[in-house]
């Protein structure tokens, strides 16, 4: 499986291989280069103050289980899988609170903050299944195969659900034409 977003993670596979071999500095590089990716996964899924916990827990798991990653070029979707699951665990401890759009009158609906908040709100209203698919596909730019690998789903399921989830999200945000 090839990671579809090459630019920021192009040399990650080499570092992963070296980290698997037990190199401490290589592992530090892996963390450094992939950290933004974990934050991207976590940002729409947990509260801002929970990001630190998610990142820490994710890399702890990566450190413990990196040796059993079969292929280094599967690292990105594998990391995304761990991050998604860590978000799930953190959210179980402290559920995400998103204010209702109907009651939130203080935010100007034309501002950028409002649209970002709306996107987060709309995502929270989706099923977890659909939300995770959209985050990995739209925010991380993973391929269908990578999303399937990350979420342990058949590729066919990912293909069919992503279309449905997009439509639902647009409808929630009243973006549908």
């Amino acid at each position, binding site marked *: 499986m090839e990671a579809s977003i090459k630019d920021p993670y192009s040399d990650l596979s080499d570092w992963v291989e070296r*980290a*698997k*071999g*037990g*190199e*401490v500095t290589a*592992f*530090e590089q892996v*963390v450094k280069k992939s*950290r*933004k990716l974990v*934050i*991207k996964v976590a*940002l*729409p899924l947990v509260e801002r103050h929970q*990001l*630190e916990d998610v*990142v*820490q827990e994710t*890399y*702890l*798991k990566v*450190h*413990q*289980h*990196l*040796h*059993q*990653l*079969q292929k280094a070029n*599967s690292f990105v979707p*594998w990391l995304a*899988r*761990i991050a998604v*699951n860590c978000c*799930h665990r953190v959210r179980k401890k402290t559920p995400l609170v998103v204010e209702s759009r109907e009651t939130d009158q203080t935010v100007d609906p034309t501002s*950028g903050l409002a*649209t*970002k908040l*709306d*996107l*987060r709100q709309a995502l929270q209203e989706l099923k977890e299944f659909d939300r995770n698919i959209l985050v990995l596909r*739209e*925010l991380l730019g993973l391929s269908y195969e990578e999303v399937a690998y990350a979420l*342990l*789903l*058949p590729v066919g399921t990912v293909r069919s659900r992503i279309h449905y989830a*997009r439509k639902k*999200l*647009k409808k929630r*945000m009243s*973006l549908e034409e």
Partner: protein
Amino acid sequence: MKSYEELWSEMAHEADEIGLVELPTASLGAPPERPQAVQRYQRAVLNGTVPLLLFALMGVLLNQWGSLALVIFAGCLVSLPFVWLIRSLLPTEVAVRPLWLIPAGLLAGGLAEVSSALTSLLIKEPEVTVHLAVEGTQRSLERFLSPLHLTAYVVVGLFWFLFLPRLRRTLYYLDTKPVARGRRVAGVVALVVVPAGLLAWLALSASWDERHQEWFKEMEGERFASFSQPGLSTLPFSESLINFPTLRLTGMARTASAERERGAIIPRSDRERLGRALAYRLNSLGINNRGYQPLSQLYIRFALNFGFEDYPVLDWPHAGWHLVNALTSLPGSQEELKLRKEELDQLRQAIPTPVEQIDRLVLGLIADQYYEPQPLTDAWGGRDGVRRGLRVLGYDLKLSPTQFEKRFVNKRLLDFWLNLREEMVGLTPEQQRKRLAAEFGPAPHGYPQTLRDKYIHEWVQATSVDKLVPYLETAELVLRLHESFLKTGRYSEVSTDARWEIGIEGERFTIRDQEISSPGNTWKGGK
């Protein structure tokens, strides 16, 4: 208003701008290089190996419940390679596709049952081992395809199906290993190509060729004739011994003999029942009884037709002794003497040559009418089990592994016999017997070691019926003595070779046959 793509792009940009406290990764040390045992186990659970193994072990336990602990243990051990092979046929992420797992589990369980059946084989003879293996396979398949077993597998499979998502979420960090291409090829070959090839080869091997068809044509009378005597096969043996009148018994024996001479095949169980009843009645009459002589003649004729080896109560040396004994009393007239001579000629002509006798045995074996050499009979626990169709969910299919195997063995047997037969046809009976005996391999402790030797041993036994010939020759001598008495009023010397010692004292005579071993080679007769 911003577009859908712009909203996601803004969120990505926001994520890029977030600065978090640096992680103290150096304090974690180097990542471990090897998985721990518990992690290996977790991975085996998720890639389907452990569930398959559980299915297989369940199959062994269900099938072997009540067997020796050693057999169960061996069955569990043998199931491991099957699971290993089946696992290679499954997708890597089998855990997310439980529907793959259920049929694979069924297959693993079934193969493990079959393999556990093989572990109970301790017999060293290869043919019998193969035979038992095929039988074990069929029985295991039948158990596996029974409603009880299938229900158990489906219930466990559904349980796994419900339990799996929870387990997968718990062990989300595991990356299941894809099966290597080489192992996948090995799995396909072992589980698909080899069994399919074996079945095709068996099907081709088990078909009759032109040579066999010619022999069948020659034997056509034997093959297609049938015999049915109402009440014969349903008659309990004890009843025939105690309650059957001699007249009815002899009537049945005459009918059976006549049918046999006509070429009919009579089931072995019926022949045995009737033959034993005749022998028992003959022994219980006593030699001075009026009915002894005709019954003795009838019995010998019956036994000649069906083979003396069937009746341990009165086997061929006894039959010969009875025959000569039956002739030692002086006939009342020339007509009676003539009838006895004719009867004797008929008996001599009725003795089959070894080739004819073996033809009957082989044909009977192939036509499944009679004769099954040991230890196959014991191994199957009765003849009825040999050629039964495969039972699936209570229904009998027409084909089964045992039927295939039986046809294969029959063909090999017939090939062997036809090759031998070509050499034996044209030889004298004695030469035929010698040629047959030459085929018999070394037999430590007097027991044949291979199935082939067992067949030959049976054939040698069956063809020994013409050892009755010396008795018939002695009987002919007795009749010649009687003939001289009827002509001159006293017994006189008849020309014989040195084989017989004849002693004459007026109206009595004594004959000792040196060709027949003592005791049982001396007869006294006369007026």
